[in-house]
């Protein structure tokens, strides 16, 4: 097993679980254009997940393809950050999650695009452009909601308050990885701080740092998500689709 496996798997799981949550908005978004936009972002995350998990499977060298990794692991074997598995909540919570995720993925994929591993570099090169769009989209909505009506301001601030603590886990040091997430924190902070300021929102003080996703210790939400995601695949062992 290559030493790149755990890192690649974690990134793939982030993207997969983010895609699954975003896709829950399909047919439910606040306006039709937004339904399309959220599906687009879900598709980008799913696309990145497929590339990363396929490559992770190769790095592992145990014959697992993207579907084996996506459908045949239990929650304790998933390595995604807790942020992406949190329930969608209202549209403000979803935009808060997307802001945090994409403000992390932009510098991550950008750095990855320059890493020595060619496959990861190629994935990073493709995904960073998509992430830049996700970030723009999330930032636009955070500004609109933060500086919209009284209700939207309240909800958007609550959304930020609810997810902010989950950002820390994203930047836990990983010195051996092709990109050490710890090195991305300041760019992330700058991005988010600027968006929140424009949106007339406040960065909450949290005082707790939920974590565990990278070690497979998740929230109670993930196993429900997986039960639904995996149910058909698992009901037909060995079938092709």
């Amino acid at each position, binding site marked *: 097993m290559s030493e790149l496996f755990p890192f690649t798997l974690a990134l793939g799981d982030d993207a997969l679980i983010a895609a699954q949550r975003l896709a829950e908005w399909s047919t439910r978004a606040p306006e039709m254009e937004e339904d399309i936009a959220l599906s687009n972002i879900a598709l980008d995350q799913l696309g990145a997940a497929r590339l990363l998990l396929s490559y992770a499977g190769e790095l592992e060298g145990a014959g697992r393809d993207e579907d084996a990794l996506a459908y045949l692991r239990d929650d304790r074997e998933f390595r995604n950050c807790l942020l992406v598995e949190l329930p969608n909540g209202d*549209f403000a919570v979803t935009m808060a999650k997307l802001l945090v995720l994409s403000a992390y993925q932009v510098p991550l994929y950008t750095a990855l695009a320059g890493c020595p591993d060619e496959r990861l570099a190629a994935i990073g090169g493709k995904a960073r452009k998509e992430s830049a769009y996700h970030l723009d989209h999330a930032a636009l909505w955070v500004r609109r909601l933060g500086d*919209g009506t009284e209700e939207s301001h309240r909800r958007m601030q609550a959304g930020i308050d609810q997810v902010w603590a989950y950002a820390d886990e994203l930047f836990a040091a990983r010195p051996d990885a092709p990109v050490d997430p710890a090195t991305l924190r300041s760019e992330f902070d700058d991005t988010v701080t600027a968006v929140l300021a424009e949106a007339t929102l406040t960065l909450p003080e949290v005082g707790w740092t939920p974590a565990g996703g990278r070690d497979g210790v998740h929230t109670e939400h993930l196993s429900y998500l997986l039960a639904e995601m995996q149910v058909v695949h698992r009901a037909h062992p060995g079938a092709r689709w």
Partner: protein
Amino acid sequence: SDLAAYFAEVVDADQKIEPRDWMPEAYRRTLIRQIAQHAHSEIIGMQPEGNWISRAPSLKRKAILLAKVQDEAGHGLYLYAAAETLGVSRDELVDLLLDGRQKYSSIFNYPTLSWADVGAIGWLVDGAAIVNQVPLCRCSYGPYARAMIRVCKEESFHQRQGYEILHTLAHGTAAQKAMAQDSVDRWWYPSLAMFGPPDGDSTHSAQSMAWKIKRFSNDELRQRFVDMCVGQAEALGLRLPDPELRWNDERQAYDFTQPDYDELMRVIKGNGPCNRQRMEHRRRAHSEGAWVREAAAAYAAKRAVKEKEKVAA
């Protein structure tokens, strides 16, 4: 009048009526109703397939399905835009849908009960939609005709994907094949009913034919669909659930059992298995999104004021 004569001339010559052209009020109303109903069908039609996005059994299928449902939202938007060229706003049309004063295709009032239903909807429902819609690409109203060209292109892509799903299932495990057959059994007659009541009972048809909005009768299109499906079913290795289905050499077409038109009428009247669920889902998405749309409007208004102040300063 000159205008009416010009209108008749354009239609007769198989040319397009454009938004700026004069048109009879009844033509405009018929088109608005038809295009809106078509747009609503795309939006409501996202739900039965959307029901399986979270459970799609491979990541590739999940991506294809998500993109397909997204395409339907896109079709809805083109079609609302086409209707807007007739002097009605999308918001008005959406309200008509949510109030139950305009309909959508009855087919979407059936539940999707298995992954195979995603395949059956692609193959049969999109297949029937294409047979219905291809003639609309030559419809006399330009914006509708052009929207339909784009929609039909994507629909045939979707139909192929549905066919592929069923093909994989029909050639998979015994359980997969049974799942595929069960889907076809449930979707066949509702798909036949998509072409509407038999010609004898169809109301608006004659005028729509004269205006070249409609070009073939319900029964003609239904026959075309059946003839198309028989060979495809054979290729799939799946059985169409009609013991009367057989080639009629004289008619050069397949004889087949008609769908249950009483059932169709019940579903159109709002009493199908999922009418209430589909409408409630849409109404809830609309009402739960209200605060977001209001916020976007408030933000835009604030920005506009700031821009003005900047210009003034």
